């Protein structure tokens, strides 16, 4: 199934695609719907954040509503957003190191249903291998060496991994190929209208993903002035030259967390997990209908989560700065 593979671009093509982007300091603010139009069916979409943290949930919500298809997704660790991508038919292929809603909720029934029936594919690489694949992409090299994955069946079932002897030390290392996503979705606490982004707390693999991708959509809790960015340029984590769209979406990671702003909406996540228990596929179909396709806009989705949950998640989120 070659259409289920993520292929590597030749270097000159990678450069030409990057050079063709307008990398000048220009305003890129748009709506979720406009940003969704930048994603083409069949694209390799890299998803920022990790598990339930800084997931670009609003953007994924918009992609599902826009009825995208054939997306190859990649993420460090995949949580409920992956279940929704499979169940909505948006993606049949997720490259990740771990895939379930979260340890406390057990094994994902949706992931199991789709992968065991071969309707979708969970391509497993080690956490570090995925990180180094994005990093190779960000560095503009075709591979990076590493010292894990050897001996394991994780490496054994992959055909694009290569072992070599170091020409300097004679040591054996594994080479993993670069990932250069067609588009990256990243949610941040703040950025300016040009796309200079600051990230608080855990960065996960977001910087490498942004620099590796051929296009970057930033969703952000708030848009700040370029003057504010320039006052502390050592706090900029993603530069405007790498960004193609900026969307201001308060609570854009809900019901997951955004560091320092809100923790996960645990009540909703518990309820969601429980909803999958009796009949997973019917459960998630109903969820998609009510929470994804149903709402008129993102605010209406947040209303469905409820004001009490939102306040509680926010209180817990801000508490990281209480000490």
């Amino acid at each position, binding site marked *: 199934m070659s259409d289920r593979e993520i292929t590597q671009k030749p270097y000159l093509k990678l450069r030409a695609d990057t050079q063709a982007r307008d990398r000048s300091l220009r305003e890129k603010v748009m709506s979720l719907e406009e940003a969704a139009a930048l994603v083409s069916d069949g694209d390799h979409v890299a998803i920022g954040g990790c598990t339930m943290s800084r997931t670009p949930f609003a953007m994924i919500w918009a992609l599902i509503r826009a009825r995208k298809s054939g997306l190859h997704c990649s993420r460090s660790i995949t949580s409920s957003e992956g279940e929704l991508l499979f169940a909505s038919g948006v993606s049949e292929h997720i490259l990740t190191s771990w895939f379930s809603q979260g340890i406390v909720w057990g094994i994902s029934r949706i992931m199991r249903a789709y992968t065991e029936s071969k309707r979708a594919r969970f391509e497993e690489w080690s956490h*570090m291998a995925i990180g180094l694949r994005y990093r190779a992409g960000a560095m503009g090299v075709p591979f990076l060496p590493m010292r*894990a994955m050897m001996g394991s069946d994780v490496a054994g079932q992959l055909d694009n991994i290569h072992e070599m002897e170091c020409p300097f030390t004679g040591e054996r290392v594994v080479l993993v190929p670069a990932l250069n996503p067609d588009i990256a979705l990243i949610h941040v606490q703040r950025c300016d209208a040009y796309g200079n982004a600051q990230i608080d707390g855990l960065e996960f693999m977001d910087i490498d993903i942004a620099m590796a991708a051929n296009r970057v959509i930033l969703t952000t809790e708030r848009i700040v002035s370029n003057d504010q960015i320039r006052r502390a340029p050592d706090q900029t984590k993603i530069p405007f030259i790498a960004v193609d769209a900026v969307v201001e979406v308060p609570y854009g990671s809900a019901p997951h967390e955004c560091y320092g702003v809100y923790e996960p909406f645990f009540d909703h996540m518990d309820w969601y997990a429980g909803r999958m228990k009796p009949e997973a596929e019917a459960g998630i179909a109903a969820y998609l209908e009510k929470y994804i396709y149903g709402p008129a806009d993102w605010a209406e989705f947040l209303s469905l989560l409820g004001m009490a949950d939102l306040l509680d998640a926010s209180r817990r989120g801000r508490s*990281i700065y209480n000490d």
Partner: protein
Amino acid sequence: MTEPLDYTASELLAVMSGRILVDGQTAFAGVGIPLLAAVLAQRTHAAGLTILFEGGTLGPFVVAGELPPSTNEQRCTRRANMLLSITDVLLLLQRGYVDVGFMGGAQIDRHGNLNSSFIGDPADPAVRLPGTGGGNDIASLTQMIVAMKHERRRFVEKVDFVTSPGYLDGGASREESGLVAGGMYRVVTDLAVMGFDDETRRMKVLALHPGVTAQEVRDNTGFDIDIAAEPKFTEPPTGKELGILRHLDPDRLYTA
């Protein structure tokens, strides 16, 4: 001698694996029992233990009653000394800054290989499990401690899929595969503490927990396991240890 204390299998697991950690070590910990055990160690015999999370946290303070649901939420970062990117925190393993990796396991075999990917034929599995996460990286690059329930279906002759490498086929096969560093150090269960023979790299019982018999271990192990004729026994959990655990996890999320 006072009355023996009541404790759950998970509490026993947390206490016994926490005791293996040494003061001054740097340990990569997964959430659940490993994290509880590591914090317990810090608050008993290993105040200078440094905890790392694969989400990117170095040296955090874990708040009682606010245990993180994964290693990637902000709860993992409270009063941490440093936050790093995922790739950079994992690279600490490769660079050699980390002494111990500490995680749970779904299935393990006689040579300490862990499977968290597939039950059954990987090409057509009975169950697709959640996968490696950082498990493969941690097992490849540190001395590993695994904490898990001792059940026959979990302790198998040969895992269906090697997600996190132990000693592979035993003997020198791990080193020969290119994994020159690290290796499986201890497996801690609710029945016993296991290690590995230096030559054959086969799992063996080092000590039984109080009240556990050799036969009980054999009955719950899916392969032939070496147990001394006169086995050693671990010391039972103390009231202090159990008190700390219950303070850390008052809702018994991980220690029910």
